[in-house]
C-alpha cells in the first residue's frame, strides 16, 4: 500500500468502512471457493450423489500428462507474451510524443483494443486470419507462406500470440507512458548538461522510474495471460488437436463439457494456487520496492 509512507492512526473502527467490501467479495469468493473445495474431495454420480474421494483427484491430476501438457502450454504462452509485449511496450512509450495534440490521438487509439469485449477480439482475429478471405491470412498466403491456423499448430500459435500482442501491448504502453511523463524535466536537463547519450538517459533516468509501473504491468499481464480463455476459444477452440488448449480451456472442458466435477475442482484449486503463489512473489517484490 502506497499509504504506508504516511503515518496512519490506529483505529479499529475503520473495519466498519471495509465491511461492505468484505461482505460482497466474500459472498462471491468464499462461497464458490468452498463449493470448489467440496467438489474436489468427492466423486459425483448423476444429479446429487456424492462419495468421499479424499485426495484422489489431486494425485491423479498431478501425475496426469494432460495436465502437464496444458500447464506447459500456459507457461510457454505467458513467457512468449511477456517477452514480446514488455520490450515492445517500453519502446513505444519511449517514442510516443510527450505534448501536443497527437498525445490524445495516440492515447485514444491505443486504448481502443483494451475496451473491446474479449470474444469480439477473438471474432475479429478469426475474420482477420481466415486463410482465403481474411486480410492477414490472404496476405501471408500471397507471400508464399501456406498459412492455415485451423490446421497447423504453429500457425495457430502465431495467430494467438499476434492477437494478444495486438490486444494488450497498449496496457504496458499506457502504464509506462504514465511513468515517463511523471519524470521532472530537470532530470533531462541535467543529463543534457552532462552530455549523456540516449542509452544512458534510458538506463539511469527512465528505467529506474519505470520500475514500479513495470511491476504492475507485468503482474497484470502475467495474471491475465495465464488466465486467457475467451479469445483463444473463439479463434482456435483449443486446437488444432490440443495444441492451444491452455489450462483455463482444459478446465472449462472438464467442468462444463464433461461435467467431471471432482477432477475439475481439483484442477481449479491447483490452477488458482499457482497463480496465487507467483502473484504473491511479484507482490512482495513490489512492496519491497515501494518501501525503499
Amino acid at each position, binding site marked *: 500500500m502506497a499509504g504506508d509512507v504516511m503515518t496512519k492512526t490506529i483505529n479499529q473502527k475503520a473495519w466498519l468502512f471495509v465491511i461492505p467490501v468484505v461482505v460482497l467479495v466474500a459472498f*462471491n469468493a468464499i462461497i464458490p471457493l468452498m*463449493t470448489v473445495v467440496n467438489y474436489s474431495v468427492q466423486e459425483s454420480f448423476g444429479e446429487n450423489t456424492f462419495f468421499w474421494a479424499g485426495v484422489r483427484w489431486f494425485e491423479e491430476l498431478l501425475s496426469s500428462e494432460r495436465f502437464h501438457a496444458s500447464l506447459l502450454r500456459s507457461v510457454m504462452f505467458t513467457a512468449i507474451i511477456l517477452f514480446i509485449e514488455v520490450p515492445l511496450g517500453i519502446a513505444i512509450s519511449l517514442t510516443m510524443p510527450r505534448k501536443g495534440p497527437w498525445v490524445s490521438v495516440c492515447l*485514444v487509439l491505443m486504448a481502443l483494443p483494451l*475496451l473491446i469485449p474479449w470474444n469480439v477480439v477473438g*471474432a475479429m482475429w478469426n*475474420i482477420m486470419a481466415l486463410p482465403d*478471405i481474411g486480410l492477414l491470412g490472404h496476405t501471408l498466403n500471397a507471400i508464399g507462406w501456406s498459412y492455415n491456423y485451423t490446421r497447423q499448430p504453429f500457425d495457430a500459435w502465431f495467430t494467438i500470440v499476434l492477437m494478444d500482442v495486438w490486444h494488450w501491448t497498449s496496457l504496458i504502453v499506457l502504464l509506462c507512458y504514465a511513468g515517463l511523463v511523471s519524470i521532472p524535466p530537470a532530470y533531462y536537463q541535467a543529463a543534457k548538461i552532462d552530455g549523456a547519450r540516449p542509452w544512458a538517459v534510458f538506463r539511469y533516468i527512465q528505467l529506474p522510474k519505470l520500475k514500479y509501473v513495470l511491476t504492475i504491468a507485468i503482474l497484470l499481464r502475467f495474471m491475465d495471460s495465464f488466465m486467457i*480463455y475467451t479469445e483463444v476459444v473463439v479463434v482456435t477452440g483449443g486446437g488444432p488437436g490440443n495444441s492451444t488448449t491452455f489450462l483455463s480451456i482444459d478446465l472449462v472442458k472438464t467442468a462444463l463439457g464433461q461435467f467431471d466435477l471432482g477432477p475439475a475442482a481439483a484442477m481449479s484449486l491447483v490452477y488458482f494456487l499457482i497463480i496465487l503463489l507467483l502473484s504473491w512473489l511479484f507482490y512482495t517484490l513490489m512492496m519491497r520496492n515501494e518501501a525503499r
Partner: protein
Amino acid sequence: MRPRYLVPAIYIVFLLLPIYWLLNMSFKTTNEILGSFTLWPKTFTLASYETIFTDSTWYSGYIASIEYVIINTVLSVAVALPAAYAFSRYRFLGDKHLFFWLLTNRMAPPAVFALPFYQLYSAVGLFDTPWAVALAHTLFNIPLAVWILEGFMSGVPKELDETAYVDGYGFWRFFFRIFMPTIAAGIGVACFFCFMFSWVELLLAKTLTSVAAKPIAALMTKTASTSGYQLGLLAAAGSLTLIPGAVVIYFVRNYIAKGFALGRV
C-alpha cells in the same frame, strides 16, 4: 515528422488493421464475403446493421450488457470508496492481510468460478438477471477499485481531513463535500477500469444468463455457431460493441495517463 515517431505510427496502423477489417466485413454482402477477397466493400450494404436494429433479441442484448456494466461500476466504486479511505488513513487489525486477500480475487481465473457461480446465483434466484452478472463481476472489480482509489487517496495529505474537522465538518459531510471532489480524477479512473473489465468479460456473463439478460457479446457467439456462416452479421454486431468503449475512452482520455501517474506511480 521526426523519424522516431515511426514506431508509434506503425503500431497504431497495426492496431487499426483488424478494426478496419471488421468494419469492412460488416458493410459487405454475404456473397461478397464468401465469394472473393476485396479490400473494401464493392457492393456497400447496411443490411447487417438493419437486422440488428430491427430484431429485438439483438438490441436487447446491448441493453442487457449496458445494464449490468453500469450496475457493476456504480456498486464497485460506491463500496470501494469508504474501504479505500480506511486503508489509506487508518491501521487496523488485519489490514495488510485483508488488502492482499482482496487482491487475490483479482487473480482468480473466471474459469475456476464459472460453475460454482452458476449454482450460487441459481440458488439465490438471481440467475439470468443483470444483477447476477453485476454482482459476479464485483469479484474482480472491487479489489481493483480499492487498489486504484487507495493510491489516489494516499496522495492527498492528511492535513486536509484534519483541517476540515477543525472547521466543524462531520465525517460524511467532509467525505462527500471535500474529499470526493479532491480525488475526482481517481474516481474517474476507477470507474473507467470497472467499466472496462465488466464490459469485456464474457465467460461469467455468459454462464450466468440464458435468455432475458444475455449480453450482446454472447449473442454473437451464438449467431456464429447456430445460424451458419453469417460473417457480415457477426462483423456488424462486433463493430457496434466498439462504440461504448470508444465513447468512454474519449471522455477519460486526459485521465488515463495522468490517472496512473497520480495514483500509483
